[in-house]
């Protein structure tokens, strides 16, 4: 408990440090830094409606991040969440297109099924390459992200193109209102419910099943698990598939909820932020929820900053990047605050 509190405090200190560093840089670049910092806090949590907006971003991020955490626990550096998220959304959009006109209570579950299957399949091939032929998973997963991005461009400008769309950004035809699970603000009881169910299921899976325990052990010491008779490749592949299915689920939610359609290059940093969240939360499910809300707040503040502080859009990327640079730092702070023994 004490360790966890220290870990959270440490993360918060580094976030504050990153924000201050960014503020100094922006001040030197000629922008109003104090205004920027208040705008971040305002935009994330204080402004009316800000909490809802923050949750809107936090819930899909939480779902992807929990999945990423599962594969990281099993010792696989699955950085393909972005691609799995995209392919999930693409599969969901195809399903919605094929089932157009059917009754909602049948169509909606089928769309979800398609999205999760799409994400799982996109995770399957780097997983198979890794586990059947020893290929390092980092590069295929990274390439998988780029390939999924290209696939999204192709799909939205080809088979699923919205003929009435303007030339600026190609996107798919909008989803029928009957199948939407939220309005464009993106927060609804359905989405909250899905996130809670995913959170509980994954917590149980990780902490209360032999699969979760063995997968965590496999991440730390694969040889030992193999000697105990567990099939390492089954554990690994299942963790890949679960993590892909959850990223696909998040893609489906973005498609059926706030966006209502898929557009080329939409939400390009979703997967990266989810990885960041999983790592900051130290792969714990409860921690992931808390950290996801924080990053959801940053995402919602990001939309608010250009209006309030007159900062260019690139400033948001810099803030996120600065946090990424420092957030996994794990030294000196406890010593500095005299909070006791080092935990790593």
């Amino acid at each position, binding site marked *: 408990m004490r360790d966890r509190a220290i870990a959270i405090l440490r993360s918060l200190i580094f976030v504050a440090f990153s924000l201050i560093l960014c503020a100094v840089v922006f001040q030197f670049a000629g922008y109003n830094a104090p205004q920027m910092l208040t705008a971040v806090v305002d935009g994330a949590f204080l402004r009316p409606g800000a909490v809802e907006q923050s949750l809107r971003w936090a819930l899909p991020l939480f779902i992807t991040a929990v999945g990423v955490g599962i594969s990281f626990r099993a010792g696989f550096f699955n950085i393909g969440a972005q691609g799995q998220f995209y392919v999930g959304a693409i599969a969901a959009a195809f399903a919605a297109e094929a089932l157009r006109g059917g009754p909602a209570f049948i169509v909606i579950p089928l769309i979800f099924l398609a999205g999760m299957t799409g994400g799982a399949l996109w995770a399957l091939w780097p997983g198979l390459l890794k586990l059947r*032929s020893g290929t390092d998973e980092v590069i295929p997963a990274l390439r998988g992200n780029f390939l999924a991005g290209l696939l999204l461009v192709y799909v939205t400008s080809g088979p699923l193109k919205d003929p009435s769309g303007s030339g600026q950004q190609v996107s798919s035809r909008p989803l029928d209102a009957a199948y939407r699970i939220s309005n464009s603000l993106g927060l609804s009881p359905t989405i909250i419910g899905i996130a809670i169910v995913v959170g509980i299921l994954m917590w149980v899976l990780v902490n209360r099943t032999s699969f979760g325990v063995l997968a965590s052990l496999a991440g730390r010491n694969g040889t030992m698990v193999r000697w105990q008779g567990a099939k390492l490749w089954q554990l690994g592949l299942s963790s890949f598939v679960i993590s892909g299915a959850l990223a696909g689920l998040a893609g489906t939610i973005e498609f059926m909820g706030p966006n209502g359609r898929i557009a080329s290059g939409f939400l390009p940093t979703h997967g990266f932020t989810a990885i960041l969240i999983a790592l900051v939360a130290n792969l714990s499910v409860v921690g992931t929820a808390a950290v996801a809300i924080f990053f959801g707040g940053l995402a919602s503040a990001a939309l608010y900053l250009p209006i309030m502080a007159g900062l260019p859009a690139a400033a948001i990327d810099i803030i996120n990047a600065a946090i990424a640079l420092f957030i996994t730092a794990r*030294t000196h702070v406890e010593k500095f605050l005299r909070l006791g023994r080092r935990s*790593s």
Partner: protein
Amino acid sequence: MNDVIIAILRSGTPLVYVTLAGVIAQRAGVWNLGLEGLMNIGACATILGIMLTQSYAAAILIAIAMCVIASVLLWFVIEKLKANPIIAGLGLTGLGIGGTALAVESIFGSQATVTAPFGAPKLGAAFGAYGVLSIFVAAMPFVVFALWLLLKRSRFGLQLSASGEHPFAARGVGIQPVRMRLIALSIGGILCAIGGAELATRSLQFFSPGKTSRRGFMAFAAGLFGGAHPIRATAAAFFFAIAGALGIRAQLMFGDKVPHDLLQALPYLATVFGVWLSGKLGGAKTAGSFGELKDQ
């Protein structure tokens, strides 16, 4: 035929310099995913440097200084603050992309393309059809060879590998892995600056935000693919460049019959195939424990 070779040399050379930066970092035990950001910083600083000083040499020095500073920042964060190298590297990439975009916007008031009055010195008429290539293309084989000597045939190279693979043992014989990584990342910064400069000034000398478009990640992949060996990694970088050039060829030839985006996917597919093959043959290394340094 000449134009194909020129195209491959042109697209391969920036990749090779950045790949070498990845190789030297990997030897020191650091998985440097900041290459993409460093390359952006190098490209942007070169263009802005040319505009500021009207001298190519001064611009390169500015670019090198900026990239080395950024690399030292990365070193400080992963070594002194003990951050995760992969996440910190991705953070540096974000800073490089966002920071250059902000720099362009705060100087020129828009995120437009910035064009410098002149580019890299070219080889000149003496090289015939190859005279349009920049001096960095000609220097590249020597840099690769020098790095091979440094990494594979020198005391320093052995100490660097020891720091990466067995830091505790290295410390036992009086090597300081912390300092070795600082040197490795700084040399990497210089190489990234040159790679970025070559990318920005090889033919049309301009910079626009996000100019490197994932070449840094390609270079990182080439370093892995080549098993952190300078010559094999260079070969891997050229393999990617050839796949890319063939992709462009295919677009010109079949662009009307096959969807454009699927042809663009060819280099990525080639990469995955290559990595799969090298994994099969046992060449590529794997990160293990999320790329953490081995002495933390």
